[in-house]
């Protein structure tokens, strides 16, 4: 499939403004996009999500905009803000991110992306405050697009908490791609909290890649609350013994929103551990997809992996598709996964009602309790409270019943 002329034009204009050093890399990336285009549903990984409509879109690159970031600011964090992919602060030199799940899409991102967060901690460093990377999108006119690439490198034994908060305002339709490359050296520890609250007119593709060296630890909490179409591809490679990944994910699409999470954890070395807990809520006419894939490479003995997915459908029109995959090429492993779909516990509803809580509130509270398995993992109280408030509101429960009481 060929990219529409609008991408060509946007690229030509964009390239002309970029430093000469970047031009070859960007052109190469764009050529890949030109050649491979957008993924279509004939590929297994894109079975439930169709981006082909983007090809025919008459897009334009967002130009510098400003937005009031205060509603999304969080207490006690050192903060950097990007609006439509651009930052007021100076950014480091751009490198095309490598290794994409889809060549065409990766090419598009690599061609257009601006440098986002670039965190590099030296050995043993540990910043006293969480780092908040606030990525806002606005669109005054329709069909704007922007692209942003983040990077986190933690050297030996360093530790950080990073909050990646993505939020949208304004009415215009928009198309955003974002990437995050994570490298954790021996013994490094990263807690990453990502909360996506784009507008209902936003199509968004995110790719996170992480490589974990010996005894490195990644704790990822990922929450999807918004977007018309949000697709997240995570590739986490446990490259050396003792590496551990822990993922807590919540998806709660509403309206006609479509959220697709594809998470692959690769156990490439012995004695590596992964834990995944996902909670899904299907509101209104939303559609959610979760594909959790655990791959155990030959020789990755003593791999210990567990995946738990539980979903609640809160509307007759909602749809949830879940696929917890295991691909195992070693025998001395402990791998398990479970997926459940169900309703709220009738006994618990009765218990609440018997104490005088009306049924709707009881259901709302229990749904929040269900989601709390993930919410409780958000290691920043202010952010946790805000996410809980959004959920309670969606559930029609007074926000004064906040879970953080």
């Amino acid at each position, binding site marked *: 499939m060929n990219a529409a002329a609008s991408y060509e034009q946007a690229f030509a204009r964009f390239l002309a403004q970029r430093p000469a050093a970047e031009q070859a890399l960007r052109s190469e990336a764009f050529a890949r996009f030109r050649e491979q285009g957008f993924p279509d549903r004939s590929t297994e990984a894109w079975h439930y999500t169709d981006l082909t409509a983007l090809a025919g879109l008459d897009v334009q690159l967002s130009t510098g905009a400003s937005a009031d970031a205060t509603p999304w600011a969080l207490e006690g964090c050192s903060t950097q803000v990007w609006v439509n992919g651009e930052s007021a602060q100076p950014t480091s030199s751009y490198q095309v991110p490598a290794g994409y799940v889809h060549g065409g899409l990766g090419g598009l991102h690599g061609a257009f992306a601006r440098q986002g967060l670039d965190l590099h901690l030296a050995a043993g460093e540990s910043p006293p405050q969480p780092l908040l990377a606030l990525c806002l999108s606005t669109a005054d006119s329709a069909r704007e697009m922007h692209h942003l690439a983040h990077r986190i490198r933690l050297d030996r034994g360093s530790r950080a908490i990073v909050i990646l908060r993505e939020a949208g305002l304004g009415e215009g339709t928009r198309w955003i791609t974002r990437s995050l490359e994570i490298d954790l050296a021996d013994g490094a520890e990263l807690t990453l909290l990502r909360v996506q609250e784009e507008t209902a007119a936003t199509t968004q593709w995110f790719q996170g890649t992480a490589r974990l060296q010996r005894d490195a630890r990644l704790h990822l909490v990922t929450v999807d609350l918004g977007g018309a179409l949000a697709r997240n591809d995570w590739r986490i490679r446990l490259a050396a013994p003792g590496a551990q990944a822990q993922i807590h994910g919540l998806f709660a699409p509403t309206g006609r929103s479509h959220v697709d999470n594809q998470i692959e954890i690769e156990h490439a070395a012995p004695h590596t551990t992964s834990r995944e807990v996902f909670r899904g809520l299907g509101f209104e006419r939303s559609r959610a997809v979760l594909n959790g894939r655990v791959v155990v490479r030959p020789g990755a003995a003593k791999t210990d992996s567990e995946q738990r997915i539980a979903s609640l459908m809160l509307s007759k029109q909602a749809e949830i598709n879940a696929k917890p995959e295991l691909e195992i090429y070693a025998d001395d492993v402990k791998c398990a996964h479970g997926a459940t779909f169900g309703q709220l*516990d*009738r*006994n*618990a509803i*009765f*218990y*609440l*009602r*018997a*104490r*005088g*809580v*009306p*049924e709707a*509130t*009881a259901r709302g*509270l*229990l749904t*929040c*309790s*269900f*989601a*709390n*398995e993930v*919410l*409780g993992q958000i290691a920043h109280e202010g952010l946790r409270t805000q996410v809980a408030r959004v959920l309670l509101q969606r559930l029609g429960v007074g926000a*004064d*019943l*906040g*879970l953080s*009481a």
Partner: protein
Amino acid sequence: MLDIQNLHARIGDKTILKGLNLQLRAGEVHAIMGPNGAGKSTLSKVLAGAEDYTVTDGSVQFAGQDLLALEPEARAAAGVFLGFQYPVEIPGVSNMVFLRAAFNAQRKQRGEKELDAAEFLAWVRHRVKQMKMDPAMLSRGVNEGFSGGEKKRNEILQMLVLEPKLMVLDETDSGLDIDALKIVADGINAMRSPERATLLVTHYQRLLDYVQPDRVHVLADGRIVRSGGPELARELEEKGYAWLRAA
């Protein structure tokens, strides 16, 4: 206060209550005893409005209202409290959130003023102390990871906080060690007043050593088969339930 006439109830195809009659006046404490499977828990759950049970005949009047016509939350607001035999765990919803949601929802239904967070905290605090519980439990999930005894104590705490008119306590004594039993009994006794009535549903006489009942009823095969004073409980303790069936 409570007037149960000819109550019949079933779960699924199984009829459990088969014409039960019981009258309870304000200020009284009655105990219902009986062998396993007699219908004790069914009676408690039917009074609280559990949907799994279908009332096929009879009536229940509570303070002049038709209790059976009310939703469970409306019964709670009217003053009926069921202490669960198996309290439910609700991870992620803290006891504090739970109690305040229940307390304010009941007040709202009764048209009373709701309490704000600070006022409510004051309301709850000394009751937690009264039950000799760790105030830290308020921020833990409802019954989450509680031992059997802690769960039962939490039921009584909820009762102290919500101040109901009719307390139906289903096997609240089971699973308690002697110290916990005394605390639970003290909680129940603290609630005794001329305006309130209590129905203790129990298999053993143990709790009745600490909470003196006015009347004791024996429930067997869905009916009250005998009623008497406190001495009936001791008689049951000595002879078991078998002699009832033989009689």
